[in-house]
């Protein structure tokens, strides 16, 4: 092999450099060298880079936005962010392109005689405030409602809560996180008494096994999946995909195990059975740190209006729990779960092996589940029984889908039952909120009212006469939109929609308020790993666009609550955050001061003595542990986590002779949620212009459906026409159809069922029965 000396030298130099880079990478995981992304940026471009979190999913990647002449022209990953270490996904790289969309809402629009009239923002806000006041006078406080979002910034969520609960005095505040994270919250509260994951993303660098429960991370949490793939090639870590559908994640994982929808409950119990039966229980951990409980069963599915349920937990002992599990031997469960005995034992052996570190990941597969709370409990059971929790590389990790589902919806608490600290049912929590808000304590009602689904049922029934939605698109994202769209169109309810782009929800609005997008305002988001991230305004928004928090404050002032909202327009984000921080003071949930957040690429709470707490409940890392033991589950009064006895119960609607297919819905990598942003990004729209219906090839053959052919999916509630997709992006199991929900022109949620988990009230978008016809 002939090579000239000069070439040979440069080759050797490169090799020398490469070996040094490899050495550096082993010493400093996550190290980054001269950024290849910058190579594509011409030197002449004089860009000003500002940091912030990504606008899209709950992973919360750090981004740097390059601006030039007041326009955002480039996005790259923030190399200093411990979340993504400089890497983004295709949505992240192109996010700023949506703001230049031609149909941007730039001015307030007020509906007059069926026509939207461009109105000065001040007048529109007057109309909103007057209508709200008038409705309260005529129909009472509980006739007005606000529906916000896991994409609201922390200040936006905070002022919404303060306005509704503190100023007006109604609990009619819920958010779209009810549709995505409620089961995770209920799971955490029932098992540990404290919300949000105990671990952090750094677990990825320590774990030997990643077990994903009904979760297509390669498309939905791609940056974390890349971190897992990196560990797979570097250390031989294994990825086990446990799902109802073969996806991009399945093909990248080491083992893919498929199960029949809803039987995850049984399989999780079978894993616990095996762990106990084989003596893999971490006895000292369970004795010291766990209690056993059971709750009510046959809870129903919330299909009827005004459905109410309250769990009654009672303590049981280990023997009773063991007895209960006898119904869940791998042999029995294999029969209806379609998971082989071998695979169940394989999963159990991974969890049971004391020398292997295991992280479980899940997101909507487990949360959007009519037994979502139970399912969350069951995975915690596995980790508690084996003591594999709250340690680097060991633990259950609930992923989120929205950028501030944790930071805003869960921590600020924009749910009907929540307060910024604690719940409305608790007098102490109400007193604290009243004190910080400077309102009379009696004003905060002690009873929760409507959760998301019930809120829109109440709109349909006419009980709610005024609703204001912010940063969300419920008429694409709610289940059974075939009921709630006509419900919102009714004249009985005055609808105010704040958004950046027109959506099917703004189509039914009486007033449309033009909101600032992400980088056109300052704000704070909190991601899945408890990381709070701040960003400063980077560009000016068009027209009269205004931050959502400021519009809420303006309305509050117009309603006469000005003294409760003494914030300034320029500095309201900082002022609100400083007020909000008071709620979480202390070692259990301390939030970092704003100066720190401005400097760092996010900080994990509890932030104590200038340090992030990466693993909660573990005395080695968490200063809030006070029982003198290695672990302290301080969320519960006795410091012990709960192992729950939760049985398998079937789904509310299962395929039958008339409706023979399961319908599963979800997302694709190119689009985020209802697509109102990502579909306005040309790159992403071209890559994925419309929704589709995935079939198993054998089902397609039996029905005579060809790829791309239009088919009609029909349920008892509605129908939807989409092109068929066979053996493309994903592959559902036989007897299942999968449809992504981003496409407002092909509304699959007209077809879905509004059954929900009775404990968390989170709807199940993953299971209902449909039939299929050629369109």
């Amino acid at each position, binding site marked *: *092999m*002939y090579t*000239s000396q000069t070439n040979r030298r*440069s*080759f050797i130099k*490169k*090799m020398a450099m*490469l070996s040094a880079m*490899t050495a550096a990478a082993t010493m400093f995981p996550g190290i980054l060298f001269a950024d290849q992304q*910058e190579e*594509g*940026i011409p030197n002449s471009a004089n860009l000003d880079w500002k940091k912030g979190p990504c606008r899209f999913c709950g992973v919360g990647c750090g981004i740097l936005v*390059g601006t030039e002449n007041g326009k955002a*022209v*480039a*996005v*790259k990953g923030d190399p200093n962010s411990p979340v993504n270490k400089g*890497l*983004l996904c*295709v949505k992240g*790289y*192109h996010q*700023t392109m949506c703001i230049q969309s031609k*149909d941007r809402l730039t001015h307030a629009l007020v509906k007059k005689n069926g026509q939207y009239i461009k109105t000065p923002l001040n007048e529109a806000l007057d109309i909103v405030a007057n209508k709200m006041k008038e409705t309260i006078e005529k129909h009472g406080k509980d006739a007005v409602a606000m529906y916000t979002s896991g994409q609201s910034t922390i200040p936006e969520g905070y002022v919404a809560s303060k306005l509704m609960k503190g100023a007006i005095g109604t609990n009619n505040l819920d958010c779209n996180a009810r549709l995505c994270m409620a089961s995770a919250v209920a799971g955490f509260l029932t098992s540990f008494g404290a919300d949000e994951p105990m671990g952090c993303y750094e677990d990825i660098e320590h774990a030997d096994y990643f077990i994903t429960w009904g979760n297509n991370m*390669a498309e939905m949490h791609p940056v974390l*999946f890349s971190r897992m793939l*990196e560990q797979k*090639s570097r250390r031989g870590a294994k990825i086990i995909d446990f799902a109802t559908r*073969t996806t*991009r994640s399945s*093909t*990248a994982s080491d083992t893919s195990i498929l199960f029949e929808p809803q039987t995850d409950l049984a399989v999780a119990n079978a894993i616990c059975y095996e762990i106990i039966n084989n003596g893999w229980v971490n006895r000292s951990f369970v004795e010291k740190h766990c209690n056993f409980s059971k709750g009510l069963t046959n809870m129903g599915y919330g299909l009827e209006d005004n459905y109410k349920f309250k769990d009654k937990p009672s303590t049981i002992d280990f023997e009773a729990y063991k007895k209960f599990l006898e119904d869940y031997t791998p042999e029995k469960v294999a029969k209806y779960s379609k998971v082989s005995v071998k695979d169940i034992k394989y999963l159990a052996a991974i969890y049971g092996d004391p020398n292997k570190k295991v992280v479980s990941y899940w997101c909507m597969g487990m949360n959007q589940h009519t037994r979502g709370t139970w399912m969350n409990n069951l995975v915690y059971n596995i980790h508690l029984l084996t003591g594999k929790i709250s340690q680097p590389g060991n633990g259950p990790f609930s992923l989120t889908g929205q950028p501030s589902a944790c930071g805003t919806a869960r921590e600020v608490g924009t749910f009907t039952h929540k307060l910024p600290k604690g719940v409305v049912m608790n007098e102490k929590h109400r007193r604290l909120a009243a004190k910080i808000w400077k309102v009379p304590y009696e004003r905060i009602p002690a009873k929760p009212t409507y959760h998301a689904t019930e809120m829109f049922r109440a709109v349909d029934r006419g009980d709610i006469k005024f609703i204001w939605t912010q940063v969300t698109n419920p008429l694409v994202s709610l289940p059974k939109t075939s009921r709630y769209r006509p419900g919102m169109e009714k004249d009985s309810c005055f609808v105010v929609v704040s958004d950046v782009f*027109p959506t099917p929800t703004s*189509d039914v609005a009486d007033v449309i308020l033009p909101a600032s997008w992400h980088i056109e305002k300052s704000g704070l988001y909190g991601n899945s790993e408890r990381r709070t991230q701040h960003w400063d305004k980077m560009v000016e928004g068009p027209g009269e666009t205004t931050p959502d928090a400021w519009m809420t404050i303006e309305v509050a002032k117009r309603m006469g609550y000005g003294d409760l909202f003494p914030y300034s327009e320029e500095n309201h984000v900082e002022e609100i955050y400083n007020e909000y921080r008071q709620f979480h003071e202390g070692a259990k949930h301390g939030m970092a001061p704003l100066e720190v957040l401005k400097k760092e690429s996010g900080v994990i709470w509890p932030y104590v003595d200038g340090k992030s707490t990466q693993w909660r409940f573990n005395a080695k890392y968490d200063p809030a542990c006070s029982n003198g033991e290695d672990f302290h589950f301080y969320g519960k009064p006795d410091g012990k986590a709960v192992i729950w006895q939760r049985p398998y119960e079937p789904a509310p609607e299962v395929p039958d002779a008339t409706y023979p297919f399961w319908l599963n819905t979800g997302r694709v*990598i*190119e689009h985020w949620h209802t697509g109102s942003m990502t*579909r*306005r990004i*040309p*790159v992403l*729209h*071209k*890559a994925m*212009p419309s929704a589709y219906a995935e079939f*198993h*090839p054998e089902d397609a053959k039996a029905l005579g459906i060809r790829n791309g052919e239009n088919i*009609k999916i029909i349920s008892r509630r*509605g*129908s*939807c*026409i*989409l092109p068929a997709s066979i*053996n493309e*992006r994903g*592959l559902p199991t036989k007897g299942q159809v999968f449809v992504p929900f981003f496409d*407002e*022109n*092909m*509304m699959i949620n*007209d077809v879905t069922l509004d059954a929900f988990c009775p404990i968390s009230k989170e709807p199940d978008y993953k299971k209902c029965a449909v039939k299929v016809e050629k369109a």
Partner: protein
Amino acid sequence: MKKRLGIISLFTLLFIAFIAIWNYSYKKGLEEAYIPITNGTPVLEIPSEKGVFTRSEFALEYLNMPVDETHQRSLETYYNNRAYPGAPPSIPHPLLKGERGIGGNACLQCHQNGGFVEKFNAYAPVTPHPELINCRQCHVAQKVETLFTASNFAKANAPKVGVNNALLGSPPMMPHDIQMRENCLSCHAGPAAPKEIRVTHPERINCRQCHVPDTREYVDVEIFTRTNSRQND
């Protein structure tokens, strides 16, 4: 008499036993010879995209892919070897294993894992689909340079490099179809990759996390505009 009866009954017993055993073993023999008929043909149950993550057993480590500047291909030679962008490349060298070589006995020996081939003074390009072993079904040799008659076939323009990103510095979109080429790294990484399209970060693996296809240009996808119409109305 008693003795005789005893002997007869013994033989009868033996005979019955013989028949029973013979029958049993005959049936067993039949059973073994019987091949159960499975109903229906199994359908390929893997999404077409799986190739993104497959790699051959002895493929180069992602982190140690050498760059050998004197032997690298360029995009020009890459496209010269194809009748049109996306066509199966022709075989630009004499067949080492003769005309009858097939798959693992011939082409795949070099083209499965890649590596430097002394004889051709080049690195062997890695095939994105090693599972298809009848290589010459699609890939043909080029024995002569002349044509039977002149042709009016005009080669379509190959996609350009460096113009496929939407924002400054954002990851480029894929300007080509990926059918039969789902494994991006076979052309975009390693010493046989054309230098213009060699990726700097092959170890990322999940290529389509950041690079999405832009092939829908051909069906003329309009910019998304709201139509206010639902298809199912």
